[in-house]
């Protein structure tokens, strides 16, 4: 199906383990984003990517790694998971950007990650 998907939808892991969350979009949008959502903080940007092989840090990048070898995929890796990374993670995509762009973001369904 067309759109933006995330996998897994739910994940439980232990402290210190490496975890990778997947994001896939079928629109060939240039921009992709990773957010985390926590009570009291709203959505905070972790990393974003303007195109394949171009990534940049957001507001809360520490402890996360991203890559984007293909336009349609934007995986997020927690190299050594900590309890503070327990959260709901959302991936989003956007066609273009820049000061004159009014493109909106399209969100995936989210991944609920619990780190024990």
């Amino acid at each position, binding site marked *: 199906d067309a759109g933006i998907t995330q996998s897994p939808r739910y994940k439980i892991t232990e402290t210190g383990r490496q975890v990778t969350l997947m994001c896939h979009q079928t629109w060939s949008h240039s921009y992709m984003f990773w957010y985390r959502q926590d009570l*009291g903080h709203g959505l905070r940007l972790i990393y974003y990517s303007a195109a394949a092989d171009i990534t940049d840090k957001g507001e809360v990048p520490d402890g996360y790694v991203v890559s984007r070898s293909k336009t349609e995929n934007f995986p997020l890796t927690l190299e050594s998971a900590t309890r503070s990374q327990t959260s709901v993670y959302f991936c*989003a995509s956007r066609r273009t950007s*820049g000061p004159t762009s009014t493109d909106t973001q399209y969100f995936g*369904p989210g991944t609920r990650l619990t780190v024990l």
Partner: protein
Amino acid sequence: SQQGEEDPQALSIQEGENATMNCSYKTSINNLQWYRQNSGRGLVHLILIRSNEREKHSGRLRVTLDTSKKSSSLLITASRAADTASYFCATQGTTQGGSEKLVFGKGTKLTVNP
């Protein structure tokens, strides 16, 4: 930070009433957007208003923008139980780097009682 701040944090109304949510932000923006999030789901875009616009309508939604006060409001008229959700404002900046991403507020949780 240009983060938007929604007010109130929570709002409970009866079906058929109007719901008004406010958003304030700190720096110059290119546009301001409102998103809705149903429980357990991703965010869905509702409406976008550009910095040179003052008011915009979409169905039962009315958005206003006052750039002099750095504030916006979202009005949902004749609310329905299905409007129960969290509503977020998000701002797109004007500066290089700032225009590439949206900055979201913490949201208003709206409950519409049947």
